[in-house]
């Protein structure tokens, strides 16, 4: 499983799975600014602490996004339960982008970006759809909606992430999700003497 990426760096070509590429780009903390395009049509852009992918509007994108988010969350030190929540939020966001945003249109792309800051894991996913009408997102917990077979994606994302921002526009929807990294030095209190 996974798509091999060909990364053309200054020292030659490397073939990497997306998650591996993300890990290298984020955690190596070296100055790398590059773009690579794989045979599958995935475009990967890397910088010091940020990596973004341009992906086709396919189910494979959904699975790859989930798998990569899981690896990224693990690398950031989240525990198993938090990793599950983050990867599931990303999966739901990718489903929204591929199905509801781009409607599987082969001419439309999904952009997925991960950024590790000192305190957060920031994930941004964009589609090229008509723009999500936030006012029409149903409350899946309302009695009338409880037995509906869809409409729980955004609710789950909000349940699993610390901050969720939805920015719709006529050229697509941007969904930004933030999970606070716990246990980093800024969060920890001084140990008792």
């Amino acid at each position: 499983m996974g798509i091999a990426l060909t990364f053309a760096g200054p020292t030659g070509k490397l073939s990497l799975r997306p998650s591996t590429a993300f890990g290298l780009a984020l955690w190596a903390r070296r100055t790398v600014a590059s773009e690579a395009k794989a045979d599958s049509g995935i475009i990967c852009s890397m910088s010091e602490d940020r990596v973004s992918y341009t992906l086709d509007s396919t189910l494979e994108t959904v699975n790859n996004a989930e798998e990569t988010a899981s690896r990224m969350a693990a690398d950031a030190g989240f525990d198993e339960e938090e990793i599950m929540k983050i990867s599931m939020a990303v999966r739901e966001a990718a489903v929204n982008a591929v199905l509801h945003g781009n409607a599987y249109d082969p001419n439309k792309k999904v952009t997925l970006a991960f950024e590790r800051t000192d305190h957060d894991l920031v994930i941004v996913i964009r589609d090229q759809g008509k723009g999500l009408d936030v006012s029409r997102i149903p409350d899946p917990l309302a009695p009338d909606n409880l037995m509906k077979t869809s409409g729980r994606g955004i609710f789950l994302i909000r349940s699993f992430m610390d901050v969720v921002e939805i920015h719709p526009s006529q050229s697509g929807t941007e969904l930004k999700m933030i999970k606070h990294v716990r246990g980093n030095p800024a969060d920890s209190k001084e140990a008792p003497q």
Partner: protein
Amino acid sequence: MKSSTRQVDGVTIVDLSGRITLGEGSVVLRDTVRDLLSKGQKKILLNLGDVNYIDSSGIGELVSAYTTAKNQGGELKLLNLTKKVHDLLQITKLYTVFDVKEDEAAGVKSFNK
């Protein structure tokens, strides 16, 4: 996802394993339940003990299976939820909607009361 069925005292137990997600398990689950109902097997116990992952599409498919069975005069209950699935049904307030069983024998018996 894999699915297999067995009969116990007039109840069809569906043993599911793997993921119930968009494009994977959702279709398998839907086809399995529809097939059982079309054959008149209307007492369905879904064993989710080996289902380790479910997404919003899978949740929707569980709701659909439950509703479809009910509308056709049948009953669909859930058995052996993993913690992940249990937690998801809790936060979506569906845990109390589904009839959830923890013990297979008791689950089978509950259909025949």
